[in-house]
């Protein structure tokens, strides 16, 4: 084909197409250049940020919560590092294979792993999912050994709350958990990120702000499959503040051990009556706060909630019971301070007495007793007589001054208020006038009166210190990183000056209770002048008891023992509440053991040792009532 024509004539005919072709190319290139200009110059900032979002990731570094110490510097609450086996789905091609292999090497059923994956399905794929929380070292080793076959599976260290004492003082420490949606909306939690661990109860909740540290953050550069290429910035997490509590762990342990020996549940509050410092605060049965540290599983949560013994409720702050004969202390104070009677006022107890035309029974025939002896022997007739002579509002005034029916103001959440009735209360709540006969029930701590264990402890402390209603509190000192500073003790809730005559009469009476023929003899300590008073809180009326039958454990009465020592200048005061203990005198040995421990520590003697319980008390099987 050599026939091709030489150019020449044809050339002119090509000028136009060539020009057109060149023109279109130039136009196309100009358009492209404009397009690049729009992206790179006009919208640069937008795309710069998008690119940054692509490759920069901020990882939160959890800050450990502050360590909590007791008054002697013992560690009560600390942190451990738990190992979590986590998965980043973005880095996994074969999710099914990875889960199966992980299940095989870790011994966790794959169904459990899948349920976790499904729960977080909607989360971004780069966010780690915790598949096995608090993994054992064996599991971690197994995962490490299969690291190559398990891309995207890695082990995370997480600071985790640790309560070395287990169940001891559980209600006092409280527990932690993931911050709730409601909390996040509140002002107190405005700087808290979702998913953060916050205090949910106890000291953990009250002092959450102090205990929570500041989470750190690490900014990393990641590639498209999530590999960390580089760290470009890191703010180290800041541990929460350290707290020192007023709690004396020795006393706490002593109280709980004594409860175990006694074989019943209950509560105890031990205060320093001079300051209101809480030396020990017991509520039994308890729970293990460690179970909450990594998020409690639903089975444990359900069993805690459905347990008929209600281990989650703090009896010391939330249980409301009638004070029984312990209320006679308030009665004595009220009658003496109001000038109704003198300590030498005598009543002849003939096994009871007739008031308002009705006969009221006493436990026994006490004969002629004065105020001190009436307290010693807990003579109902004597206090009925006082009740007959007094207005309920007078009793209300002095019981309230001692803290009964009032909030103690302790620095723990969820305290409930007891009830000290008055004419105002009756009119407002029941719409009825107060009947004088009702005052008789109040006089012996029955009727509408109800108290929490902590309010009885406050009463005892107030009587012991001469009338200052101290505020029980747990916070002693705070270490904000550069040393300890003492926490300012809360101001007393109220103060009255009880007359020396009143104090000496009541003190004498309560000394007799423990040191003479009274019901509190089991609380006696040689040479320590323990004062105290027992009480019995009826769970159910006599008629009700007969109707229900005697078989059920839960109908037995509660026992009280309030105490202080040494008489005259008490350093320790408190209450022991024995749930269904039937008799107050059974609660007294618990108080004695706490006081003995206190004095032994003070003198540098070895702590007293309790005899081991022969055998844990057998829990009677609940048998259906026979028809």
């Amino acid at each position, binding site marked *: *084909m*050599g*026939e*091709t*024509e*030489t*150019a020449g004539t*044809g*050339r002119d*005919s*090509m000028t136009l*197409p*060539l020009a*057109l*072709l*060149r023109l279109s*190319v*130039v136009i*196309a*290139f100009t358009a*492209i*250049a404009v*397009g*690049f*200009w729009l*992206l*790179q*110059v006009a*919208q*640069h900032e*937008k*795309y*710069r940020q*998008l*690119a*940054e979002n*692509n*490759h920069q990731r901020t990882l939160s570094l959890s800050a450990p919560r502050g360590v909590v110490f007791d008054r002697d510097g013992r560690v009560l609450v600390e942190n451990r590092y738990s190992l979590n086996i986590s998965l980043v789905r973005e880095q996994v091609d074969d999710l099914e294979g990875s889960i199966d292999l992980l299940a095989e090497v870790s011994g966790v059923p794959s169904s459990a792993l899948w349920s976790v994956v499904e729960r977080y399905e909607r989360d971004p794929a780069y966010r780690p999912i915790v598949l096995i929380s608090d993994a054992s070292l064996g599991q971690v080793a197994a995962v490490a050994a299969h690291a190559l076959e398990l891309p995207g599976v890695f082990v995370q260290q997480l600071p985790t709350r640790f309560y070395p004492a287990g169940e001891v003082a559980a209600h006092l420490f409280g527990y932690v958990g993931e911050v709730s949606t409601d909390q996040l909306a509140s002002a107190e939690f405005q700087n808290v990120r979702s998913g953060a661990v916050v205090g949910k109860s106890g000291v953990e909740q009250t002092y959450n702000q102090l205990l929570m540290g500041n989470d750190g953050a690490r900014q990393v*550069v*990641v*590639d*498209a*499959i999530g*590999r960390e*290429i*580089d760290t470009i910035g890191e703010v180290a997490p800041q541990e929460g503040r350290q707290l020192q509590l007023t709690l004396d762990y020795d006393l706490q342990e002593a109280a709980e051990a004594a409860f175990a020996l006694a074989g019943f549940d209950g509560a105890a509050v031990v205060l320093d009556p001079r300051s209101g410092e809480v030396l020990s605060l017991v509520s039994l049965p308890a729970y293990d706060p460690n179970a909450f540290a990594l998020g409690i599983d639903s089975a444990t949560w359900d069993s805690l909630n459905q347990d008929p013994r209600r281990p989650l409720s703090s009896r010391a702050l939330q249980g409301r019971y009638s004070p029984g004969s312990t209320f006679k202390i308030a009665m004595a104070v009220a009658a003496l301070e109001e000038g109704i009677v003198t300590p030498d006022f005598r009543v002849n107890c003939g096994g009871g007495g007739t008031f308002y035309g009705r006969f009221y029974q006493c436990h026994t025939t006490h004969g002629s007793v004065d105020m001190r002896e009436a307290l010693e022997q807990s003579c109902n007739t004597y206090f009925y007589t006082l009740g007959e002579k007094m207005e309920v509002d007078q009793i209300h005034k002095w019981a309230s001054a001692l803290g009964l029916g009032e909030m103690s103001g302790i620095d723990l959440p969820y305290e409930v208020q007891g009830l000290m009735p008055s004419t105002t209360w009756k009119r407002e709540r029941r719409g009825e006038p107060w009947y004088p006969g009702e005052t008789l029930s109040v006089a012996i701590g029955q009727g509408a009166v109800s108290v929490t264990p902590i309010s009885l402890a406050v009463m005892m402390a107030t009587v012991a210190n001469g009338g200052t209603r101290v505020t029980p509190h747990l916070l002693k000192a705070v270490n904000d990183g550069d040393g300890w500073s003492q926490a300012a003790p809360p101001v007393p809730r109220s103060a009255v000056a009880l007359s020396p005559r009143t104090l000496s009469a009541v003190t004498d009476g309560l000394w007799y209770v423990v040191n003479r023929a009274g019901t509190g003899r089991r609380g006696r300590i040689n040479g320590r002048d323990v004062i105290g008073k027992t009480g019995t809180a009826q769970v159910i009326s006599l008629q009700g008891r007969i109707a229900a039958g005697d078989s059920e454990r839960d109908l037995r009465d509660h026992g009280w023992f309030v105490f202080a020592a040494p008489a005259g200048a008490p350093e320790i005061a408190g209450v022991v509440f024995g749930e269904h203990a039937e008799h107050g005198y059974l609660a007294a040995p618990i108080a004695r053991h706490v006081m003995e421990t206190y004095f032994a520590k003070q003198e540098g003697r070895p702590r007293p040792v309790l005899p081991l319980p022969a055998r844990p008390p057998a829990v009677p099987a609940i048998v259906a009532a026979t028809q």
Partner: protein
Amino acid sequence: MLERRLYRHIDWLLVGALALLCAVGVTMIYSTTYDPLTGAAGPLVSTQLWALGLGLVAFVIMLSVDYRWFSDSWVVIFVGLVALVGYAMLFGTEGGGARRWIDLGAFNLQPSEFARIVVALALATLFADRRRGPQTPVGWMLAVLIVGLPFLLIAQQPDLGTAVTLLPVCFGILVFAGLRLRYVAVLVVLAILTAPVAWAYGLEDYQRQRISSFLDPEQDARGAGYQQIQARITVGSGGPVGKGFLKGTQSQYNFLPVAHNDFIFSVLAEEQGFLGVVFALGLYLFVILRGLDAARLAKDRLGTYLVVGLMSGFAFQVIYNIAMSAGLAPVKGLTLPLMSYGGSSVIATLAAFGLVLNVRMRRFTN
């Protein structure tokens, strides 16, 4: 064959621009295959350098032998191409969903990359021949066969992207061979009218997906729209002056897929910024306009048509790829000639420019 005096007519400016573009390409491939964790580049750079070496050989051969000799042998060359493309389609190595490579042991050959040259040569020869030109029915049928056969074979691999690059080659030659501009308008209208039919019957699902995700990338941000979104982010985040060599986060951390290949220009835009883009665009524009000069200077129709065909194909591919690299056109498996990684592409492109220079160089010979 290459007489000494011809050396004087080699367009050294064009050669220099080509060399510069190849150098920029290799640099960018180095950058995209660089692993920031290990601090080493992958093996692709050396592969590309070998391909450039082979491309240089092809370039010299295509330059040295008088283009009229290739023109005379167009039937043999065309049959050879069809055979290779067909072989690749039937027995080739698969990659990226298409069967387009022939495994030659040392490297894979992609015959479809050479189709543009062969089609340009065949059509130019045909249309330059007055007697059997497009004026005769036989000529028309031959023209349809020359474009249609390789097109269908390549489209069947299936590699529609490469097949489509044959159309500008054909279109350019047709216009220059006297196709009236009003016919051009008719063709454009026809193309628009047949588009819905082609959409419904002519395209694979993934192709439809690509086009619809181009119109609305966010609808499928993790799937087909991903590359396009990432391409825009890559380009836009580069800014006026770029992030610097090896500092492109999008390419270094693999957010932009096939960066070394179809999206090499995005990487350049990210690391060198708008300034780098303007520089590279200028180089390409220079190469195209300078190449088209050869069409004007050619001493015969054959030369003109050949250059126009080759340069139309080149210009189309460059414009499309660069537009795509900024997310301004649907994602299509089209390389950027001279810069993208790919041995066959480099060799074929350099061979094509060998022919363009060949025409220019021999403008005074007989």
